[in-house]
């Protein structure tokens, strides 16, 4: 078992606290089948360092885990990590989590870039991402009113801390996914072919049962051009249904 990065410095009143979904991503990315897949794609010591992007880093626990275990996951130490989140408080907290996790390691370290405040991967240069990770807001619940985002995204003038209203808004952003819990994820899926690198780019997206994972996977395969989607991790089996799944999205060679 690889250690879980520490997030004890974070105030979880306005940043998503690591939960079953976060841990499922850690387990999946470090599972023997996924590390074998990733090492096979990216192990070449002569190839350029893979760039890992996590959208919606929250506490940063997932990105920090990748950043602190590149040798185990990729079989190399020159991995680059980059994150984004719509919540500016999460951006700062996550950057700290990643830096701390890397510092803790003596032998297995990667190169951390930054966490930028943005909508999904909208500021990412096309075709530059080798490994993409997303634990989206996936709960079928109404999206919060984004028109007041700017105001809620910073500490109010003359105040020392965020208000209760701000905190509830920011936490809603972390779980509420609109209809079928798929509104944010669908927007992200559209960007995936644009941001992934042509050679070997692969995406991991977490879904819950209400997101209808089988339908989502079929839709991805219907993109054509060799796009594949498979479940590579799951948790919370109930009456034959997995509560949470991690879907791997990639393009088959040829």
């Amino acid at each position, binding site marked *: 078992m690889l250690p879980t990065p520490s997030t004890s410095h974070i105030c979880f009143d306005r940043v998503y606290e690591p939960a079953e979904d976060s841990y499922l991503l850690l387990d999946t990315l470090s599972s023997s089948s996924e590390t074998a897949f990733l090492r096979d794609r990216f192990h070449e*010591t*002569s*190839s*350029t*360092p893979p*760039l890992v992007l996590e959208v919606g880093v929250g506490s940063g626990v997932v990105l920090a885990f990748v950043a602190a275990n590149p040798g185990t996951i990729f079989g190399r*130490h*020159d991995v*680059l990590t*980059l994150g*984004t989140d*719509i919540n*500016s408080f999460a*951006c*700062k907290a996550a*950057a700290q989590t990643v830096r701390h996790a890397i510092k803790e390691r003596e032998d297995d*370290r990667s*190169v951390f*870039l*930054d*966490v*930028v*405040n*943005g*909508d999904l991967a*909208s*500021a*990412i*240069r*096309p075709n*530059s991402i080798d490994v993409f990770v997303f634990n989206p807001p996936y709960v079928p619940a109404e999206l919060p009113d*984004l*028109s007041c*985002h*700017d105001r809620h*995204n910073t500490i109010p003038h003359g105040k020392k801390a965020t208000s209760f209203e701000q905190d509830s808004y920011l936490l809603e952003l972390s779980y509420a996914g609109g209809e079928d819990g798929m509104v944010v994820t669908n927007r992200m899926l559209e960007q995936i072919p644009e941001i992934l690198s042509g050679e070997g780019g692969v995406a991991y997206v977490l879904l819950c049962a209400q997101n209808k994972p089988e339908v989502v996977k079929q839709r991805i395969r219907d993109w054509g051009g060799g796009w594949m989607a498979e479940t590579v991790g799951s948790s919370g089996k109930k009456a034959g249904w997995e509560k949470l799944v991690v879907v791997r999205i990639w393009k088959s060679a040829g």
Partner: protein
Amino acid sequence: MKLLTLNFLTCAVKTCKTQPSSFPLHPRDAELEIIEAELNLPFLRNILPRLMWEDICSVARELGLPALPAIAPIPADLLAAPLDPSTTTGGAEQEPSQTARDLHRVLLETCIQEGKLVCGCCGHEYAVKEGVANFLLPGHLV
């Protein structure tokens, strides 16, 4: 925010992405800070082919940093010449050259703490505050 990060970012406006002038973003009114980081020589060597060299040079110039070599370094440029050539076969740890140190300093230790990043295509200014760049557009938030 590290300068190497700029190698992977572009304007968040959809119609800008296909325009070459949207990359790189141009720092303006930037307050820089040096945040020391461990030099990872294999990383520097392997990242070279991924760097948009001319763009990195132009960003460094705009920030008033010491000039980078006009032509991208090759892996051999990153290794210090051994003091005693007869020791090279010993398999000892390879030492970074001055070029490697300079590159490391520019890409991974020079951070924009405050300022703006400006798109050369649409002119949009993205604020950087406390080292975090904000790429949210009003259009994202409807």
